[in-house]
């Protein structure tokens, strides 16, 4: 009933308006009608209006987050590989837009957002049972639950796609599909439930034991995918010829387009996580943009100093690192701390992909771990430092008093929670991914054979070429 205002009048085109009209012209004309009736009509109308504004932003945000995977990530990664693997790499992002969608509809949404154990949701929402137009006030009281469902789906799509940067240019397509489905079930859904699901272990808003702040997915999205990426890189081993051969990007041009679309889409990812077109959405939007900007500068300057030339690849990698790091913090921090978080992420990730990676010699081909694993962890921890109720006063104690959030609010303990949350994400990612890789290896085998790798995934796996310029 609470939500009737959303279901009925909204359904028919124009219908809604006549409803209001009826009510309100009523509110003018028909003398007899009682003031309370008029107030009730206005009350319904104002809820409809609030929902329109919030839903407009959330549908836009959902579309933006999908855009991050395709073409955003597909281009960013596709440009970084060698020409012979461009399509196979783009496909690893694109196909997840399809696969995860079906998985999400069947069990994913339920396992994440249904109430259940602190570790996983139950199956009440399986096959989207009961997930309709009526809002789910636990999560977002002013938008249809289906808007929330499809918005969260887009997160479930991009997270496994991020991992593909680590096993690029050498994994079987069949193995990649199997891996992804299992990874979503075993790593992503549980982690997302713990942080965002009602009653989840780490849920800061809905009764988690260890309240952890993760506004848009630092632990859930970036630590899980980045750390799993490292495990994949180690398990699969290096590409033939790595590191002796340079294996430089075949088209940084494509990667620049991809990075820009990621930046653009990330506004939906972070500001959308306010779940409405509110002032909080604005704060998250600003923090996101500032974090990306400062990180691009951080990476560029340190690279300029250390290697003599500021590369375009560095600038775009930097902005992505900043976007990653600001993700958990975006709904909690002020603009200048956002600049700081971004800058630190840019510098740290630069060293991760230039020094650390070479020191340890793993082939994290497109730096999924160096950027998402490292950046995500940095962001998760710094969120505990800079989170402030000046930006997000939504957390109240029993007495209804606004709570101190991060260290800057005087709640240093939060940093510990952030560390615990990050640690859980690390452990889950490492253990889960290892198990899954063993399974896939046993069932279908992970790596394409030597000849196929030399020939390239495009021809050997998909029977195509990315570019055919002869005729």
């Amino acid at each position, binding site marked *: 009933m609470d939500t009737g205002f959303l279901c009925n009048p909204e359904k028919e085109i124009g219908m809604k308006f006549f409803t209001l009209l009826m009510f309100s012209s009523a509110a003018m004309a028909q003398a007899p009608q009682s003031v309370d009736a008029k107030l009730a009509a206005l009350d319904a109308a104002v809820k409809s209006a609030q929902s329109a504004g919030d839903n407009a932003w959330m549908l836009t945000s959902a579309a933006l987050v999908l855009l991050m995977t395709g073409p955003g990530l597909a281009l960013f990664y596709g440009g970084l590989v060698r020409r012979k693997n461009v399509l196979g790499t783009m496909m690893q992002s694109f196909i997840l837009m399809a696969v995860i969608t079906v998985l999400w509809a069947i069990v994913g949404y339920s396992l994440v957002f249904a109430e259940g154990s602190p570790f996983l949701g139950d199956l009440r929402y399986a096959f989207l049972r009961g997930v309709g137009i009526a809002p789910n006030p636990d999560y977002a009281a002013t938008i249809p639950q289906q808007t929330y469902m499809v918005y969260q789906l887009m997160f479930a799509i991009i997270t496994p796609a991020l991992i593909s940067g680590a096993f690029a240019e050498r994994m079987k397509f069949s193995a990649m599909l199997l891996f992804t489905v299992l990874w979503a079930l075993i790593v992503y859904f549980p982690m997302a439930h713990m942080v965002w699901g009602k009653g989840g272990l780490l849920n800061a808003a809905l009764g988690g034991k260890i309240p952890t702040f993760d506004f848009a997915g630092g632990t859930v999205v970036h630590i899980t995918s980045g750390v799993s990426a490292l495990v994949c890189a180690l398990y699969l081993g290096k590409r033939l010829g790595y*590191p002796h051969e*340079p294996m*430089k*990007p075949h088209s940084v041009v494509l990667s620049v387009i991809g990075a820009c679309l990621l930046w653009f889409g990330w506004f939906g990812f972070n500001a959308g996580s306010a779940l409405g077109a509110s002032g909080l959405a604005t704060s998250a939007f600003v923090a996101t943009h500032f974090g990306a900007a400062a990180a691009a500068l951080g990476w560029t300057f340190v690279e300029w100093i*250390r*290697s*003599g*030339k500021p*590369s375009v*690849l560095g600038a775009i990698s930097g902005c992505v690192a900043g976007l990653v790091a600001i993700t958990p913090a975006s709904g909690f921090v002020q603009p200048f701390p956002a600049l700081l978080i971004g800058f630190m992420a840019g510098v740290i990730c*630069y060293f991760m*992909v*230039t*020094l650390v*990676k*070479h020191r340890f010699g793993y082939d994290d081909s497109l*730096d999924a771990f160096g950027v998402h694993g490292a950046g995500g962890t940095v962001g998760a921890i710094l969120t505990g430092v800079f989170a402030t109720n000046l930006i997000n006063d939504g957390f109240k104690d029993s007495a209804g008093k606004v709570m101190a959030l991060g260290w800057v609010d005087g709640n240093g303990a939060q940093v510990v929670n952030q560390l615990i949350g990050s640690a859980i994400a690390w452990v889950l990612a490492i253990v889960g991914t290892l198990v899954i890789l063993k399974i896939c290896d046993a069932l279908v085998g992970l790596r394409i054979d030597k000849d196929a790798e030399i020939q390239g995934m495009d021809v050997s796996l998909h029977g195509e070429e990315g570019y055919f310029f002869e005729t």
Partner: protein
Amino acid sequence: MKKIEAIIQPFKMEPVKEALKAIGIDGMTLTEVRGHGRQKGHKEVYRGQEYNVDLLPKMKIELVVSDARLEEVLRTLTTAARTGKIGDGKIFVYDVAEAIRIRNDDRGEAAL
């Protein structure tokens, strides 16, 4: 007939083409190649790893000329393509056993 194969700096292609036109040499075939020689390439850094790109873009010009015009063409080529810096490139000359114009089966010098 001789075939002249000149490997030159790409940015010298225009002047060379002009110079050849000037002495009435029209027919030529160009190929983009990459060369390796005394000229050291440039350094590239990728993800912090520095490596030397020692294959540099060059333009290969092939033209078949009558023995009579050989020296004149060689002179024209070298002067037009020269900067005096390492990397200017090389010219190689080969004997041509036969030349045919596909359009009308002209053979020998008539085909050039």
